[in-house]
């Protein structure tokens, strides 16, 4: 069988074959293998509060340098759960698949999901598959939900950003967004760009267990760094000031963005995190982040300022100090970035 048939979503034998031959093969774990209507989860013996997050993944193209929609669906939800200072333990995944889908492609996606989950130390505990007629979806949609205990009290949240906090970023921005956009448009860049898609739960675990003082953790996905910083400034009614010269952007992303008329600060990232915490813990937090491969490029990019004391900007605004030393607003992304005329 090299093309997916509608039968595979019927609930009958064809469905069972798909689950047994494909999903269980790559998601192998005792909870899922029990094949009950619901997953039996042992829970958290310490009775800690749990974090839960869900997200649906549609990406064009579904395969790109650095990953595919499957690994992205694992990393995205693992990271969302982790950003509450939690340890993601269990995931669900639901597929909506288009009739006629190439089975080799589906296998690559599922295989990548299995590997991404194993690497992150989470299990896929439940799932669902629907197959819809050709044209009803664009190849493959995946929804993942993640659950896990919160490791620190109080949990890091956007409203906790406070004046005196340092703003840290775990590495370069724009890589995922430019990679996907470049592939979609069939563009090749002088130097290769690759998605940064990666699970951040291990670096988060070290951060919050060694530094419970962490105020905010957030992964700047869609809308990019600029939009995420604005969300946090808005939630905490502070002014966030960031230094353009300190924001790491790879030369290939700078060049690609320049060519396409895009701003890397608004491009999606899938393997980066922002960490806000009191100034005095800045060095320790950077050391923890750099311990992990995904945090090798960790740097401080700015500070949180009391709006009453800010020379520029009001509560809820992000101010960028440019490379030239000038100041300007770094506002939220409005709609999607579109290629321009000249």
């Amino acid at each position, binding site marked *: 069988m090299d093309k997916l048939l509608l039968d595979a979503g019927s609930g009958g034998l064809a469905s069972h074959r798909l689950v047994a031959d494909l999903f269980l093969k790559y998601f192998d774990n005792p909870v899922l293998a029990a094949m009950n209507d619901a997953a039996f989860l042992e829970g958290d013996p310490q009775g800690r509060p749990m974090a839960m997050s869900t997200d649906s993944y549609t990406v064009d193209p579904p395969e790109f340098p650095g990953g595919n929609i499957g690994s992205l669906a694992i990393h995205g939800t693992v990271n969302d759960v982790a950003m509450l200072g939690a340890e993601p333990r269990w995931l669900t995944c639901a597929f909506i698949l288009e009739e006629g889908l190439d089975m080799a492609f589906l296998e690559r996606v599922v295989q990548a999901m299995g590997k991404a989950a194993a690497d992150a130390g989470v299990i896929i505990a439940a799932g669902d598959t629907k197959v819809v007629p050709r044209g009803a979806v664009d190849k493959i949609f995946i929804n993942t939900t993640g659950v896990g205990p919160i490791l620190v009290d109080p949990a890091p949240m956007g409203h906790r950003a406070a004046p005196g906090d340092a703003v840290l970023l775990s590495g370069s921005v724009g890589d995922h967004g430019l990679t996907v956009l470049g592939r979609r448009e069939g563009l090749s860049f002088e130097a290769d760009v690759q998605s940064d898609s990666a699970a951040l739960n291990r670096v988060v675990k070290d951060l919050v267990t060694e530094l419970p003082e962490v105020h905010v953790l957030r992964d700047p996905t869609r809308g990019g760094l600029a939009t995420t910083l604005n969300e946090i400034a808005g939630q905490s009614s502070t002014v966030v000031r960031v230094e353009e010269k300190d924001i790491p952007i790879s030369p290939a992303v700078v060049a690609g963005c320049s060519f396409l*008329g895009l701003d890397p600060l608004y491009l999606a990232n899938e393997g980066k995190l922002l960490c806000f915490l009191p100034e005095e813990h800045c060095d320790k937090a950077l050391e923890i982040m750099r311990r992990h491969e995904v945090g090798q490029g960790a740097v401080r990019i700015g500070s949180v300022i009391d709006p009453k004391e800010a020379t520029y900007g009001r509560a809820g605004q992000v101010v960028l100090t440019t490379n*030239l*030393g*000038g100041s*300007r607003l770094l506002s939220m992304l409005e*709609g999607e*970035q579109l290629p*321009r*005329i*000249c």
Partner: protein
Amino acid sequence: MDFLQEFSDPELCRALVAQLVEECTEPFRFMEVCGTHTVAIFRSGLRSLLPDTIIHVSGPGCPVCVTHESEVELYLEMACRRDTVTATFGDLMKVPGAGGSCLKTAQAEGAHVEIVYSPFDALALARKYPDKKVVFLGIGFETTAPTIAATIKMAREQKIDNFLVLSFHKLVPPALRALLDDPEIGVDGFLLPGHVSTIIGLEPYRFLADDYGIPGAVAGFDPLDVLKGLLAIVRMKNEGKPAVTNEYRRAVSDQGNPTAVAIMEEVFEPADALWRGIGSIPGSGLVFREDWKDFDAAAVLGLEQKPAKPLPGCKCGDVLKGKIRPDECPLFKKRCTPATPVGPCMVSTEGSCAAYFKYHIES
């Protein structure tokens, strides 16, 4: 040093800003004609570094912003036809017509609209959809017109007969003349558009100095380019010797690109055109020459430009002429935001209202 960063070197910029502070002793209103300059000045933070004596005014150099209401209405009507595929650069997608609809809403209602990066992509669409007329929206200045003309020539060579262009191209020098003829504008000097100048060179701007005594400098889009251009203009003012200079030699030759101009002139010829907020400017548009009319979407599809009223309350015209700052428009940040744009200056990423909204820190 990285070539991309070379022209943003903070030390050199600081030195040029200091020179500007020293030499620009009287208030000086300069207009940057091009939308890319507007964004570059805001984005680099230059605006907050320039001395108070330099008053920065945005001009009519954003092709989306100057597209007339009646042109927007016409292409929206065309896009809704079942027999057409509209190919466009992305920044036209959200430009609202009189009724508030735009290409994005038309697309949601079933119009076949495709965003392209180059007119050659539109030609590929014409091959892909042989049963439809693929119409490329020819909006832009001298920068884009030659490439579009070259695409049209290629379509003829390859006998692709379902590729059409709706030409609403505009020419920059006639618009500058029209601005200078308006006694209310009061501009002391022009930062001339780098992109347009790569095609037309310096000659078409000479009238600024010769006829009006206004200096102009062709400038690039990195901070050093902008500062160098400004300093050249300030010095010409101080010396009382207005001229048109080339401060963007790494991209612009004084003669421009004669090959590109020849291709553009082979396919198109100048005609009067409507500019949003400014009105009709003689010889400021490009229409198809007789020999090329079989690619003219307006002629082939029988499209007729109808009079359209300006959007009520929208002051984009005054912004484009540098008469008011974006934040002096009563709709700015109230009815008119990037999410709910009333006029095109707020729609286009290169529009001065959008730049103000996005980058300007209120004091």
